[in-house]
């Protein structure tokens, strides 16, 4: 089962390595990870994707909570939520291909953020599934480079992760 866990932690040196270290120590997976300070500079928000059955996820959240630097966390997948990932992709596009790529970018509501005679750099935001869908749609093109941020997310409604 895929889970999105969002963590508020002390913005201290070493905090990130404690979280990441836990996953390798206890043989849990991290599929993606994104972290940055919040509006309160003393806190960072880390969002990660992991997978496992109910018991495993329970252990993961308990062990995360045990880390002294972790202030609070939420399993976003436990309720309605919004998730987003950003992807920058550079691909080779020449001749008739160029128009075709632009059409696909438009369908996926992406933006061309840079271009040369032979390449397009495209920015795309959405769920990971949507980004995967875009990659499938342009699979005929030569992809030169892909940079994805990993998923971040927030609960729907009035529910918040804050202290």
């Amino acid at each position, binding site marked *: 089962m895929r889970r999105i866990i969002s963590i508020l*932690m*002390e913005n201290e*040196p*070493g905090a990130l*390595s*404690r979280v990441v*270290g836990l996953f390798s*120590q206890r043989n849990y997976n991290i599929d993606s990870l994104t972290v940055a300070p919040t509006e309160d500079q003393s806190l960072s928000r880390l969002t990660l994707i992991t997978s496992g059955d109910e*018991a495993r996820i*329970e*252990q993961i959240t*308990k*062990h995360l*909570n*045990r880390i*002294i*630097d*972790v*202030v609070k966390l939420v399993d976003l997948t436990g309720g309605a939520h919004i998730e987003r990932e950003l992807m920058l992709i550079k691909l080779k596009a020449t001749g008739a291909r160029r128009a075709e790529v632009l059409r696909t970018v438009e369908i996926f509501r992406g933006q061309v953020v840079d271009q040369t005679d032979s390449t397009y750099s495209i920015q795309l935001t959405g769920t990971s599934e949507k980004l995967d869908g875009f990659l499938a749609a342009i699979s005929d093109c030569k992809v030169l480079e892909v940079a994805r941020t990993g998923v971040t997310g927030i609960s729907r409604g009035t529910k918040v992760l804050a*202290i």
Partner: protein
Amino acid sequence: MTGERTEQAELLSGGEMLIRALRDEGVKIIFGYPGGAVLHIYDAIFHQDHVEHILVRHEQAATHAADGYARATGKAGVVLVTSGPGATNAITGIATAYMDSVPLVVISGQVESRMVGTDAFQETDMVGISRPIVKHSFIARNAAEIPLLVKKAFHIATTGRPGPVVIDIPKDTTDPRVKAPYVYPSEISMRSYSAPEKGHPGQIRKAVDALLHAKRPMLYSGGGVIQGNAAEAVTRLARLLGYPITNTLMGLGGFPASDPQFVGMLGMHGTYEANMAMHYCDVLLCAGARFDDRVTNSDVKKFCPDATVVHIDIDPASISKTVTADIPIVGAVASVFEDMIAEIERSKAKPDADTLKIWWDQINRWREKDSLRIPEPENGLIKPQQVVKLVHEMTGGDAYVSSDVGQHQMFAAQYYGFDRPRRWINSGGLGTMGFGLPAAMGAQFAFPDAVSVCITGEGSFLMNMQEFATCMQYQLPIKVICLNNQALGMVKQWQDMQYGGRYSHSTYAESLPDFVKLTESFGHVGIRISRPEELRDKLTECFALKDRLVFVDVLVDPDEHVYPMAIKGGAMKDMILSKTERT
């Protein structure tokens, strides 16, 4: 931290602040070894006499000694080591304390801040290396924050599920030329850390209800009962209900071994009756234990198949980690037990006497197996179990007993019979050979007038024997009882049982030192015992030498095995009872 007192606050260097903060924290003794990165701190130690520093002979021993001190007293043990090899030598001791949830504060020197990351002389990333084996760690950024880090370190190490905390201190932050106002915070609160205390009342009611309606109840208590000072509460609850109780290796002394309700230790080398009662129980109350694989045997699906499991632990991550709890209770064991006792007394309910009698009759039939009977000595050889029994007798069963790891550890656990908590000091989780002697030092420093015994084997003893020098320097009258079977006994036992008796690198009889001469060369007393008939007299002689360290080299039957022993892959009821008998 209060700022108002800054005006009158004394100006101290970082090194002085560290020692002053330890003193303000109530620390009387620290175990350490000097080196370049901590010399400013050692100079601060030189200028005061409130905190006593014990010079060990290896940093691993400093951590084990502080660990032994912590286990015997319940207070945090404190360690001071230098950077690089000083820090890495401390690692085994930190891991030992972490696995057994022992409160330690380990202060490690670090190269100067500006040198960090340059592969400087004696530089190592202590916070990185120790990260998976500490409860938390800090790096001091400047002198002024040292008191706060010390306060936080003790708070974290000693509350909740205890554990080791590292404070890494770069040399420049202790520079005697740089002074800052010293303020020791009287209290600490951390938004990201709070220790659970009371258990959930609804869960406690459910647990009490399950216990009172049990047909075949079983109480199983572990190291958390010792660490959480809950032995008295556990004992009262067990007696109130009249139920059978077992202790884990870490939990021995949590309930008096001499009490008829005690069915012995459980697990891999537990008694027949304890393991049978575990397997067939219908309600299992687990308190401060973690269903270790040395208890449950390898296949948890076969563990206590009929039991409703109540699990009390201060650490939520321990609950339902390996065995799913039907009634989980997160809280301090002592507080939860007090609430359970109050609930039972309030409800005025009692367990059904007839049902309980049927269960006790069954347990007493299992007891008749007498699974810890000591085999008759053969070929004039001493049985190691006899030695432990005699040590119990001669110390009135009330010594601080440390052990190393292997057969002797199991014999000590099975045969000493601990009636009180904090008397049994052993490395249960990590299983660290070399733990015993320095841990016995820690207990002896904590209680100078008590009897501190180290039951060891010749293999383990050789791993930290340099501490004999420390024992001489501080005149520690420890009694080291070495069950010398001239082999790595537990390895050899497994090789006998699973590898057709092929003793791959587990024997070394021809190269053992003369332990009596070795002991004497350090200035201590050495005694050798090789025949059963001289055992009593010579052990008496050993314990009569009250102010001397005595090493007793007892040559024991090299072919003795530890029994009972769990059958790999089986349930708790599946045991090997002797070289010829299985369940």
